[in-house]
């Protein structure tokens, strides 16, 4: 299975049709294992049972960034290698990435509520994710603004790459802004000293969510290929004179 094989959308469709059920099954199994382990995980001595939110918050936050990375590679594919599936991949990833980012935000604020007493704190990490979410929405708006997908692809690819370069800068500025205004008093996650009892369920959940993303992404890419096929057929149909 080389990149060249996948470049043909028809082959991509037939290949993924075979792979997709297995991916979905693997995702389901991993999720069940992950959820079971999360349920069995002990309470944290500081946070109590709220630590369970971590098992879904962290994978979502991780995917929020990972999906932007996938889109950046796809953007390079569009701009540099002109790979025919690159903009399909980029377009299909955006709504999924936005959904994961949204979940990261919401679970983050639900996790923070017991710690801070408010749902929202302008904490550096949450704020950065919020900005990432806005950028996802902007990217989706860009895809929707232009009817011709191949024209939108260039613009979206440039925005994605600029975003990828800018995101660390934004993260750094927000960190700086945050420490300027308030000494770091907010919750700190265990960091590297995370106990094994938490680490294993977390890793399983992270892998499960990654599988979930890959499954959804491939399915969404298939839809996008079909959508473009419909579009080009319709344009052909419009070009033909009336049958009657």
């Amino acid at each position: 299975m080389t990149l060249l094989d996948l470049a043909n959308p028809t082959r991509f469709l037939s290949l993924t049709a075979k792979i997709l059920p297995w991916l979905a099954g693997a995702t389901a199994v991993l999720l069940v294992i992950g959820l079971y382990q999360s349920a069995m995980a002990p309470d944290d001595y500081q946070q109590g049972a709220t630590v369970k939110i971590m098992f879904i918050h962290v994978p979502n936050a991780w995917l929020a960034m990972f999906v932007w990375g996938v889109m950046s590679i796809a953007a390079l594919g569009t701009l540099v290698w002109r790979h025919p599936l690159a903009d399909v991949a980029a377009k299909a990833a955006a709504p999924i990435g936005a959904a994961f980012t949204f979940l990261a935000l919401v679970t983050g604020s639900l996790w923070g509520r017991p710690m801070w007493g408010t749902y929202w704190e302008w904490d550096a990490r949450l704020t950065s994710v919020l900005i990432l979410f806005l950028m996802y929405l902007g990217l989706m708006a860009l895809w929707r603004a232009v009817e011709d997908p191949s024209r939108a692809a260039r613009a979206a690819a440039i925005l994605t790459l600029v975003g990828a370069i800018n995101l660390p800068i934004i993260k750094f500025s927000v960190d700086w802004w945050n420490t300027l205004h308030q000494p770091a008093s907010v919750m700190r996650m265990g960091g590297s000293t995370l106990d094994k009892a938490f680490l294993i369920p977390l890793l399983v959940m992270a892998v499960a969510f990654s599988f979930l993303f890959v499954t959804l992404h491939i399915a969404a890419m298939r839809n996008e290929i079909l959508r473009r096929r419909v579009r080009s057929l319709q344009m052909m149909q419009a070009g033909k004179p009336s049958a009657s």
Partner: protein
Amino acid sequence: MTALAALIRRDIRVALRIGGGALIGVLFFLTVVVLMPFAVGPDLALLKRLGPAILWLGALLASLLTLDRLFMADHDDGSLDLLVMSRTPLELACATKALAHWLVAGLPLIVATPVLGLLLNLDGSATLAVALTLLAGTPALTLTGMIGAALAVTLHRGGLLLAVLVLPLSIPVLIFGVAASNAATSGDTPFGTPFTILCALSLASLVIGPFAAAASLRHGLD
């Protein structure tokens, strides 16, 4: 009646389909409000105090920016000529277009308000008050903004000129909108008075807006 229903259906459809900008206004609103704390600092007490004002400013700018194309799009594709020529009074057509625009661009702002209230540390009653004042006040913004949008067609210019024309007109709405929201938050002034005035402003602009816009369109065509 069929004519106006058809117009409303068309405008909503065009706004919601690919290429339409229905939800960009909300996105702008979201971005402006999120930007504010970076300027004033993440002090939750301060944000709570400024919250209604920030939300109102964001909603004002968002509803103004999306108005740009209200008549311009119809002018560019020639639809406006037919709207002017039709048997439906142009004033009614303008009011209908404003209603369609408010439904796709104004209403989502109000729906987004609770989320943003959360970010600005507003409590439930304050958020509700802001949402309520926006519900009463955004029609006035749309209707006065429509005058500017009609003038923009006449002058073949949109964008910043529109903002310069319309922003001064929306000062009263801003004053009473924020006053009513603050009254609900702090509680030392009555909520009813500014809120009633806000409703009155919306009703007045419902009368003035369509007539001014229609007059401007009629005389501005060439």
